[in-house]
């Protein structure tokens, strides 16, 4: 294979195939280098200046998000964000999307998504303690989708189970728009046993750059490169743009990296994982952050395949690899340390002071460019935005459902895939390994204790793209608040947020509007409850045949539980406990699951979210939990009160008898800011004096699994056992 010359790249505009625009190429050749970049160099710019690495389309928007709080030790810009949780401990977390790889190779795409996010956590020196996953697919109608779902779920479980991290929460939802563009987002949470950490930097003249982990192959190299046959040999078909994971190696790498930072901090100056754009992005970012230069010798890079070009090695996204910057004095110690873990570790370069990024391959200098030009000189784009036409058209539309049989609708709603139990999926994930999981999937938030303390961490993944589709700003607010309610209902104090912003093409003004407004909504909600956004990830261009997915921001939130005694779960505990609905219910049916069920589509605007009420209700729940008044607590989300009541009853096979001022339809309204709680009957007076908000005493828990419900329209008695079967079996049945 012969590489095209610099001149060919320019004349034939080969850079365009790699995603660089004419003006970007001009900027590189005329302003930055003042010469034509060669093949390898053009490749480096093309990946480093891609949206994925540079955030050139989204940076301006991302700046809107709050990222400060007294707890923040590290925010966006590092591999993951860090929050102080007291007692010299800190929590580290981040979420990552792997949408495109999962569409192409669902098992490996999902698995390497999990692998990648775990590396982001341990590269901060933190011990990973839990995983979460947020998945969106097309409806479970055809074999292809079921296969895709099976493989994605198997990939997530395969990686997490093997490496030995509990998956304690997540979400799965189904909408038409994801049929050809599934969303696979994974989140990892880690614990740092001190409040200092290693930045991903490479500084200090002559300090060494060490490569650790799996060998480099041709996997994951910018797919577009291989699309053009001219530059590849005849074995093109033998190549693959798909990364394959090896959780076994990652386990060794994880244990080694955590140990080296914990026990031998003085050896290591900086550490970073090789994620997207592998070797180039990790090393260039490390050098650029430190204001240093770098010399790399690619002949030293452990290689799995033969005859790899510099371009291929630099861009490879082979998994399970890390880069360290160390002092030469400790070289022997470091190499021996990794050898003991049976990991490849080699010196591949050193730090310089001239700010240049120099790469040698087979004794040729194949790259010589300013480091900062890869990371700092990327143009930032200010995209146009316009309000989507559907929002203008449907502004005044209000969906008012008619319920002819409460019982029938109730049973049907429990079977809707978006509402039905997701146990079929999450039971394939080990949720208990490490023996620290106190609340497993199935409730509001997952809870993992911090061994040796009274503390625990609550965590959740939330998104409702139906809402963001109808109104990106309000939908963004709701995503944050829903996450917060899940944390609060579990007994936690929300302390921070990570996100995955899954959107369409930013060059489409309507799609950009969705991104921008969603972020504004997220920001305003985070400001209010003081949860800084400390890390996150952007995935744009999610579309198929030019039809974009719903705007789908995913919120990952972590909460601190200062005393494990406060942990509250959704399940009703015993008969005669009193059931309360906290918060006011209105006719919120636009974007609801009921609207989907009745009309097969969603339509109309959302009612503004009353942030003050939201906060008031959350604070109320926190207070009541702190006063030990609450026996069970569940936030209301899709399917409204009817679904929340059912789920709370299923947990311990109990029933309930209630009488409400709501209509039958309102049982399914999705008004925000509400909670369902139970308390012991003797605490009634004490509890009600706390309640300076809208609330309704609905009735009480009963022993028999029977749901006796009186609305303003009718009185029904619903078979709880049947309801539970419907809810539990809906997904296994569809997956058959």
């Amino acid at each position: 294979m012969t590489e095209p010359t610099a001149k060919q790249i320019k004349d034939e505009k080969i850079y365009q195939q790699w995603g660089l625009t004419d003006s970007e190429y001009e900027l590189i050749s005329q302003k930055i280098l003042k010469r034509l970049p060669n093949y390898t160099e053009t490749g480096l710019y093309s990946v480093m200046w891609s949206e994925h690495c540079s955030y050139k389309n989204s940076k301006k928007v991302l700046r809107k998000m709050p990222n400060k709080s007294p707890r923040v030790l590290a925010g966006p810009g590092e591999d993951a964000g860090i929050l102080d949780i007291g007692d010299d401990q800190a929590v580290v977390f981040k979420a990552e999307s792997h949408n495109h790889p999962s569409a192409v190779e669902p098992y490996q795409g999902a698995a390497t998504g999990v692998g990648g996010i775990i590396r982001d956590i341990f590269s901060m020196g933190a011990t990973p303690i839990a995983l979460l996953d947020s998945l969106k697919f097309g409806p479970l109608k055809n074999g292809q989708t079921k296969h895709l779902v099976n493989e994605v779920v198997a990939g997530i479980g395969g990686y997490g189970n093997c490496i030995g991290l509990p998956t304690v929460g997540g979400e799965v939802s189904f909408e038409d728009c994801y049929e050809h563009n599934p969303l696979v987002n994974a989140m990892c949470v880690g614990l740092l046993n001190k409040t200092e950490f290693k930045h991903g930097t490479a500084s200090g003249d002559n300090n060494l750059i060490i490569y650790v982990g799996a060998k480099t192959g041709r996997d994951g190299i910018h797919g577009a490169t291989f699309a053009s046959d001219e530059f590849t040999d005849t074995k093109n078909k033998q190549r693959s743009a798909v990364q394959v994971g090896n959780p076994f190696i990652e386990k060794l790498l994880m244990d080694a990296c955590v140990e080296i930072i914990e026990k031998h901090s003085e050896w290591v100056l900086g550490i970073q994982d090789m994620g997207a754009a592998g070797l180039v992005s990790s090393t260039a970012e490390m050098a650029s952050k430190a204001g240093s230069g770098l010399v790399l010798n690619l002949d030293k890079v452990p290689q799995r395949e033969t005859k790899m070009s510099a371009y291929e090695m630099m861009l490879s996204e082979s998994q399970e690899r890390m880069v360290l910057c160390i002092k030469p004095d400790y070289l022997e110690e470091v190499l021996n340390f990794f050898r003991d873990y049976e990991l490849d570790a080699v010196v591949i370069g050193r730090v310089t002071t001239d700010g240049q990024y120099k790469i040698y391959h087979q004794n040729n200098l194949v790259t010589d460019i300013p480091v900062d030009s890869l990371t700092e000189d990327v143009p930032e784009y200010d995209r146009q935005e316009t309000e989507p036409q559907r929002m203008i058209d449907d502004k005044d539309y209000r969906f008012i459902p008619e319920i002819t049989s409460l019982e029938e609708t109730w049973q049907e709603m429990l079977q809707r895939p978006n509402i039905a139990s997701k146990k079929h999926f999450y039971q394939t994930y080990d949720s208990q390994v490490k023996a620290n999981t106190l609340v497993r999937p199935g409730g509001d938030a997952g809870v993992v204790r911090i061994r040796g303390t009274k503390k625990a961490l609550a965590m959740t993944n939330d998104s409702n793209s139906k809402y963001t589709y109808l109104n990106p700003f309000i939908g963004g607010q709701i995503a944050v608040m829903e996450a917060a309610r899940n944390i609060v209902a579990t007994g936690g104090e929300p302390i921070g947020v990570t996100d995955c912003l899954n959107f369409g093409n930013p060059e489409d003004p309507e799609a950009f509007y969705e991104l921008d407004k969603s972020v504004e909504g997220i920001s305003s909600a985070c400001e209010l409850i003081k949860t800084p956004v400390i890390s996150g990830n952007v995935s744009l261009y999610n579309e198929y045949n030019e039809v974009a997915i719903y705007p789908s921001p995913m919120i990952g939130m972590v909460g601190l539980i200062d005393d494990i005694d406060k942990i509250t779960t959704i399940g009703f505990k015993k008969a005669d406990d009193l059931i309360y609905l906290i918060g006011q219910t209105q006719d919120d049916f636009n974007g609801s699951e009921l609207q989907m069920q009745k009309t097969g589509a969603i339509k109309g605007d959302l009612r503004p979210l009353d942030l003050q009420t939201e906060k008031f209700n959350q604070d109320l729940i926190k207070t009541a939990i702190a006063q030990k008044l609450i026996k069970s607590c569940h936030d209301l989300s899709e399917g409204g009160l009817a679904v929340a009541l059912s789920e709370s009853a299923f947990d311990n096979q109990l029933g309930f008898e209630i009488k409400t001022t709501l209509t039958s339809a309102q049982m399914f309204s999705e008004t925000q800011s509400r909670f369902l709680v139970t308390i012991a009957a003797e605490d009634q007076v004490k509890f009600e004096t706390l309640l300076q908000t809208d609330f309704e005493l609905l009735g009480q828990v009963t022993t028999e699994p029977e749901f006796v419900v009186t609305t303003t329209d009718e009185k029904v008695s619903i078979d709880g056992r049947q309801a539970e079967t419907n809810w539990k079996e809906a997904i296994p049945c569809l997956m058959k």
Partner: protein
Amino acid sequence: MKLVKVYVTLKKSVLDAQGEAIKSAINTMGYDKVADVHMGKYFELSFADDYNAMEKDVDAICDELLANPNIETYRYEIAEAE
């Protein structure tokens, strides 16, 4: 009755994590002449009858289910079932 034997292997460029682990185990056991190990999947599909479109169907089954063309290649043999 026809028996179709399908072999699915990873493309050469794709990391064969299992193969690597098995190779190093074999070497540790003292068989140092083994230079390389690859692991793949092996399927036996029995078809009730022979029919015209059988080969076309096997191709489709391999493409859509047994192998992922992005990372794997496959080959098969058709034999008479005993």
